[in-house]
């Protein structure tokens, strides 16, 4: 079997999603049984950003977030809609509770990583003011590092365009 001549760029630190959800659930007063739902919601929000990067023909983007995961591209209402679509939760208050939980969990875990850490599949996160839900997200298409050097050249060309 051939051995790759390069490896995807290593991430400095990768957050433990279970710990993120567990800590967030504890802060927001959710039961542990909500953890799979929280993870599904986080995945749905990540897909939202993935779709945006794909539509713009880029492989990455940098954005400042508020309310945890909202940004200039996606309002808090968009984020709550994704929570609803992925979990089936209808009530706005409970949707918001999940958003608070995810934001709090992310903020708590990032306290240990002043230079930021990655959510695998959802880019690199750095806390700006976690208590106010402010973060800096560097989103990279999850598969871009796996396509090899040619893919990097292509992505630069895309940026020029």
């Amino acid at each position: 079997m051939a051995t790759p001549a390069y490896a995807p760029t290593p991430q400095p630190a990768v957050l433990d999603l279970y710990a993120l959800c567990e800590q967030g659930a504890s802060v927001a007063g959710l039961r542990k049984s909500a953890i799979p739902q929280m993870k599904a919601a986080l995945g749905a929000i990540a897909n939202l950003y993935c779709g945006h990067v794909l539509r713009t023909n880029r492989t990455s983007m940098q954005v400042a977030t508020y309310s945890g995961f909202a940004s200039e591209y996606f309002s808090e209402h968009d984020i709550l809609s994704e929570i609803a679509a992925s979990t089936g939760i209808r009530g706005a208050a409970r949707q918001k509770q999940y958003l608070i939980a995810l934001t709090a969990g992310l903020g708590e875990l990032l306290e240990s990583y002043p230079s930021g850490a990655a959510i695998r599949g959802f880019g690199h996160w750095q806390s700006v003011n976690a208590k106010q839900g402010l973060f800096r997200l560097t989103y990279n298409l999850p598969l871009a590092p796996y396509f090899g050097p040619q893919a990097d050249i292509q992505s630069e060309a895309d940026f020029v365009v």
Partner: protein
Amino acid sequence: MDEASLDWTLFRPEPPLCTLIRFSDPHFGSSFVTRDEQWWRKGLPHLPVVNLLTGLFPHSYTYACALAAAFHQIVQHRQSRKVPVTVVHSGDLTSSGKQAEFSTGATFLAHGHYSDTNRLHGLGLDKYGLSGSLLDIPGNHDLWSRGDPKQALSFSTRYGGPYPRRLDTSAVVIYGMDSNRAPNAQHRRANGEIPMDQLGALLGMMRDDRKAGRVVIVTLHHPVQMTAESAPKLAGKEILFLKDRDKIARSLRENGACVVLAGHVHQPQWTRATPGSPLQYVAGSACQSGAKPQFWILDLYPDEVIHHSMVYPPNAVSFFPDPDTQGRASFEVSP
């Protein structure tokens, strides 16, 4: 292998004949977005009984959107390198064969679903010009509602015969079989059967391809080869199996099938070609709730497959190539 890669140049300098993106068992429910907070979404996936019940779960919105996101990245990469892409879906498009479920699945494949925030989630085969490059066959779940004429119409519209279906690309020939023809008692146990006339027709069609030295791939819902360890069992007895699978595997091998693609058991695996069976890839469930989502990327060459298993790891929110499963497997094109 330490790190995974979707770059074929690490294995061979030339591009593949085509890239097969092949998935199975998405089990689409009647609504693309999750409309209700079902009780089983919370605790049940953690209970030991889950293996017996997972077949009942519909798709997961999050997994389906992640599948679409991964699909777009792969197709855009391969198409930008002029590598033809073919898509193979090997059954159980729906959770229980209802009209609304067929509609959800068909829309996801061809175009996409608009979410409440007006964003499109789907494979978008139409957009990529891949509608004619899809081979789609039925699974046992797609037949669950066949007793209701209204629901059965959806099945026959999408999966009506004749079989085998044939997808002829410039590089390969792919045949699709209907392995869900078992008598009712067996069908209820999710066991499969291929009628002799369907198998005979396939072998006859393959004969010409074999003479032309073409790469022949056969897809069906039920695997033709299972190891003793991986075969699903209930009370010590194997379940979900294909009747006479050893004979069928041998016939396929002897008549020139290079690769077999299957699904059904929700356990991704691959087995090398042997004198009694072709090289086989079994896909897991692509996006079912409670499952460990998986699909395959197969870069096809005239003499081998470079394969990548795409998985949704527990500590991630996207599909990634599994470094432990990436590799290559050779096959012979019969003279």
